[in-house]
């Protein structure tokens, strides 16, 4: 009994780590290079409202979160692209509102109150088979989408104004990208937690960007770094019984500190790529 449980836990963890690192590599590189970290934080916290609502309605909370996550992602892209509102203010409001709604619904739900901590800080134990399948599908879609439209996506992210001269679909691509990012975030919430998911997506890309400015290389290598960090996080979390997300993020931040140290030593030897950063 014990060994079967251990086996399924290991499989689940490895699958989770694999898909989470693919999403962290692709969506994370997009978020970091386009400077959408704060916006992504907004999406995450807004989707917590959906988690709460899902609980209250006794449906799968991830579905509620997905609806809120997608809605806020597309909504924020729309509001900021129209220049109707100051971006950071809009994000700040949505951020707080999502958390407020989530908490209200969870407290209003009669009977068993879900473990808030596992939503906030993540737990591999709460991840279901269905979550992993959904995350696997999103990972696959992200890979295909990025591989097929690589140059277009790269150039829209880099210089949207110029990209408009060669494609009429700049806005469409931006909406698809932010929607996929929102989905990737939501589906990682159970593993990494609402509060920590953003670091999971952004630290690996930041580590690799210390060493290269090749977009594709950043995607691939930050996926590898994520996989190592997440797997290590799962293992530590399993043996110490600490919240998964918190352990993963701590591990990733340690990687980042080490990477900065290495970067510093390299920069000392020759003028570095990052000299003006």
């Amino acid at each position, binding site marked *: 009994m014990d060994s079967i449980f251990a086996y399924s836990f290991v499989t689940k963890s490895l699958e989770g780590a694999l898909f989470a690192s693919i999403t962290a590599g692709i969506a994370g*590189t997009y978020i970091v*290079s386009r*400077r959408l970290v704060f916006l992504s934080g907004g999406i995450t916290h807004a989707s917590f409202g959906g988690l709460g609502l899902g609980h209250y309605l006794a449906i799968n909370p991830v579905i509620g979160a997905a609806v809120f996550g997608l809605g806020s992602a597309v909504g924020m892209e729309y509001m900021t692209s129209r220049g109707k509102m100051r971006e950071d203010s809009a994000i700040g409001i949505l951020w707080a509102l999502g958390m407020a709604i989530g908490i209200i619904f969870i407290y209003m739900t009669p009977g068993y109150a879900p473990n808030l901590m596992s939503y906030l800080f993540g737990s591999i134990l709460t991840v279901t088979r269905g979550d992993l399948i959904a995350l696997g599908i999103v990972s696959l879609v992200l890979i295909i989408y990025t591989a*097929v*439209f*690589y*140059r*277009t996506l*790269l*150039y829209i*992210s*880099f*210089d949207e*104004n*110029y*990209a*408009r*001269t*060669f*494609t009429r*679909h700049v806005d469409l*691509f931006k909406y698809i990208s932010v929607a996929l990012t929102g989905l990737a975030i939501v589906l990682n919430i159970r593993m990494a937690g609402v509060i920590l998911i953003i670091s999971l997506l952004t630290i690996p890309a930041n580590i690799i*960007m210390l060493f*290269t*400015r*090749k*977009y594709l290389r*950043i995607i691939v290598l930050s996926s590898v770094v994520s996989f190592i960090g997440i797997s290590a996080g799962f293992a530590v979390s399993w043996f110490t019984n600490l919240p998964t997300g918190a352990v993963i993020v701590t591990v990733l931040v340690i990687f980042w500190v080490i990477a900065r140290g290495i970067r510093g030593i390299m920069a000392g030897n020759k003028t570095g*790529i*990052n*000299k*003006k*950063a």
Partner: protein
Amino acid sequence: MPTLFTIESLTAGYEGRVVLRDVSITVEENDFIGIIGPNGGGKTTLLRVVLGLLKPLTGRIDYTPGNLTLNQIGYLPQVAQGDTLFPVTVEDVVLSGLMLNKGAAGRMGRKEKIRAAEVMSELGLAPLARQALNELSGGQLQRVYLARAITGSPRLLLLDEPATFVDSSFEADFYDKLRVLNSRMAIMMVSHDVGTISAWVKSFACVNGGLFYHPHSKITDEDLRLYGCPIQLVTHGDVPHVVLHKHE
């Protein structure tokens, strides 16, 4: 000289605000037109119309005289340095100029990289191909954006304030490059510095709501007043001086 395209009684603007009124101009192959005028006068709007990014409200732009197509127009947008920390290399940026001839799923192979290398070496960027943008000087960065605008071998090159962050010592070099390019393509260049560009352009158009074409590169304060073009005229003569004149 054969005609490249014409604009006829064009009106253009944004959400109910008309910026350009009754603009007509004929642009010929190998023209080098300096576009001058006050801020908000519609210089950038004019470029956006020519690029097909903004539909005219009335009037029309006719590309048929020179069989010009939109993917034959190179563009150097007004850039405030851009995001130089964005993870792209010089070569990546130059390659993006070739997207004009590709669909959204376009890829960059050997052929494209050879073409980018050609343009980079023409503009003295070859040694920088693998560099990140934050390692470049203002002048180098500007040449990268110029390279992007011309990799697609355009027949018309549109430049929006190309010298904003170029050291004045490199400015002459930059305009010199443009003069060479002008033998292969028509150029329309927005600038606020009439004095400097008058040494390089062949003609002027003042855009201030309307458009007033001046068929020579010599432009005087008197001309500007006549056109109702309230800009500062800086002349470079034997005795450099600045003529400041406010127009109503």
